[in-house]
């Protein structure tokens, strides 16, 4: 059972992160689509999900991550994005949908932080379940404003789509 799951549709990039983790002796499951990732999430029960904002086979990125959070409130979710602007990323963090947002804008720094996250998840996975934290996460999840998440997600999606046109 792996402790961290990476979902990104860029196969080469996924391979780079996976190789980095392997060279550090860390476990990491990888998936290149949301469906594949969700299947792994359900069967492997990771403590950490690292996901790109935009994934094939998914609806909007934030709603997906919210679904993950709702399934397992104590899971740590890290969002990585190369497209969303810093102001929007800050809002995502404020809403509490994800635990951390990382930009692909500074590669080495972000990559090192990702490896640290995977390392933490690996060590956490060996420890017993922290039930008070699970309970706190449930409370936090109930505070999440679904409407706000949808609005922000729509706006972010529109911005990303505009760039593609």
């Amino acid at each position: 059972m792996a402790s961290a799951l990476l979902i990104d549709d860029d196969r080469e990039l996924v391979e780079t992160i996976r190789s980095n983790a392997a060279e550090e002796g860390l476990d990491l499951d990888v998936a290149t689509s949301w469906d594949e990732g969700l299947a792994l999430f359900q069967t492997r029960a990771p403590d950490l999900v690292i996901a790109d904002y935009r994934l094939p086979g998914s609806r909007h990125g934030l709603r997906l991550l919210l679904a993950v959070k709702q399934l397992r409130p104590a899971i740590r979710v890290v969002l990585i994005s190369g497209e969303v602007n810093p102001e929007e990323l800050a809002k995502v963090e404020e809403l509490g949908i994800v635990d951390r947002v990382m930009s692909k804008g500074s590669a080495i720094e972000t990559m090192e932080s990702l490896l640290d996250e995977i390392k933490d998840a690996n060590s956490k996975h060996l420890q017993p379940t922290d039930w008070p934290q699970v309970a706190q996460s449930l409370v936090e999840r109930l505070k999440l404003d679904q409407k706000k998440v949808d609005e922000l997600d729509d706006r972010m999606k529109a911005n990303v789509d505009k760039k593609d046109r």
Partner: protein
Amino acid sequence: MTATKATSRKPTDANGLVFRPSARLQRYLGREMISDPNLAVIEFVKNAYDAGASRVDLRFVLTEEPSRLVIADDGVGMSFASFAENWMQPGFSAKSDEAPERIKRRRAPDNESGRRMASRLPVGEKGLGRLAAGRLGAKMDVYTRSAASQPWLHVYLAWDMFDDMTKHMDEIVIPYEYVTDIPEPTLDGKGTVVTVTDLALDWSGKMVGRPAVGRSRTRLGRLREDLNLLLRPMVQPKIDFTVRLDSDAIADEEDPRGEITPSTAIETAPYRYEFDVRVNEDGVATVERTLRRSAAIARQFRKPKIQEVTGGAIEAIARSEERPSTLRSGPFKGIFLYSPPPARHRARAVDVVGHGVLLYRDGVLVEPYGLGENDWVGVEARKASRQGHALIQPDTLWGEVHISRATNPLLRDMANRQGLLDDETSEEFLSHIRAEFSVFEGVVGPELEQRWIQEEDRVSSAARDQLRAVTLRTKTFAHHLRQPLFGIGGELIRLRRLANDKAIPPVQRDRLKEITARLIQFQQRAEGLVNRYAKSPSFDYEKVFVRKLLRDVRAQTTDLASLNGTRVSLDIRNDRALLIPREFVEDALAELVINAIEAPRPEGRKPSVTLIADKRGAEIVIQVIDNGGGLEGVPPQTSLGEVSVAPTKDRPADGLVQVWDIVTFARGRAEIVSTSESGTLIEVRFPYQALRLRKSSHRSGR
């Protein structure tokens, strides 16, 4: 036969010393008095006019060997005596007012050409123009006769005869003969035919350098324009004289051939200001003025097409118009046209005449007024005194002023024909002309300002749309680049890890570490650029002080500067607030600084970039100066918008053009002031006065 006899006079005389000019003086005079080959051709045209010709044909034969120029007129021609008097005595002119009466009386034969000649006031009078033929070609044949019934007098000159310094001018023997037939076509079988052979210039070629807007780039095209300026004024007096220009070889298919046609500028100008300064029966000097607007302008401003502009007695208006109260120079009339120059590619199709206010005496051009850089109306000076904000710019003013030898006898030419004699009379005349220009500018000023604002808005709006499109593309491109750069970052971490692997021998490990460190530097530099282009600058106008702006610009480029070992220094001489789309302008200036940092430099030159900010009149001027190797093929004073057409040395021009777009959007100007192997100076100017004027019209996302 010879036209003159060799004599053996000595440089002394019983009463004192006498000049004995060397033969070479003839050559020097020809070269020095007439600096431009076109003027040398024009001298022959003037001679034909003075000879009462109704037509002169200029025909270049360039495809035969040797090449030649044939100038044929139907004027009065010359007898042996008048040829000897007119041609063989440099500096003597039978046309001059000072010529002896016996010679003046001989001037007009009793035929049509003679009557025309008598009615014309000569345009040449110095007796030097013919020397200029030596500039045009190595040899010259002159055929001349007064009537078809007479034989032709043929005089033959090979100019190298005059190259011998040891001979005196009067020792050179010019051969002549009488012939019944001549090798070139004539006009009406009489007059004068001059053939210049073995031409010094390739007349079917192009001019060196970039022509001014509206000017031809071929030699023949330029000659045609100069002839047009000489003899075809837009307003009266019309003269009974036509000029044809033909050539069997041309540089450009668009080069017009045949008869010189008048300018069309007068019909197309948005504004036309006519003035007539005269002396009435009571001896009082007055001025009458009329302003004519084109139909479109009259409609736009709801003003009359024809408007009388207040004038009156010169003495009465002298004080208010800051002009002389006297009119010693005599009456004159003129016309000023406000007509923005046509786009470069359309210039020739629209008109062959460039801008400038020309001076005509009896319908024939007086040089150099209004030609080239000559600013006798003072337009450039006014522009400078108003810190560049003059409404009528030098390249928008056309026109002409007419004087006459009969009514303006005191306005005389200098001996070298480079302008009027500099005396009180000419000074008074120039003051009157400048006063008329001021009145013209005063009348059309408010309308021009409105048009200017509208035009600026249009240009600014187009620049903004273009910027939006470019920004979006750049941003998308940058985002797409991020993904592979992120991957490279990941692989670099792996490489760094490998470089620390103790299984690898220390020497190889050190090399790996060094390579990795350098790769990381490059990756981060690329990433920095991508991040810069990935952010979307705001179109909002903000008030920002120049010092803050330039500090931010320097901060944006610090990483690159330190990587390149370039010192970027600031010199803020005047810290003023600007109203600009700050983020865009900051990016544009950063682009200039990046260009300056990356400019290739000769080996051993320590790179430096200086940013200077100062106030110049109502403008804030920001100079970006580098000590790089310069931009190849870019002439001084080139607008950044034009740089794309010029090749640059290892530096992309697109970035500079984008800077121009941004600066134009911000209502500024940007140009390469100078560039050479020792460095480049680029100047960006923001007319903050103009911005203040239009501050209310700027809203974000407009």
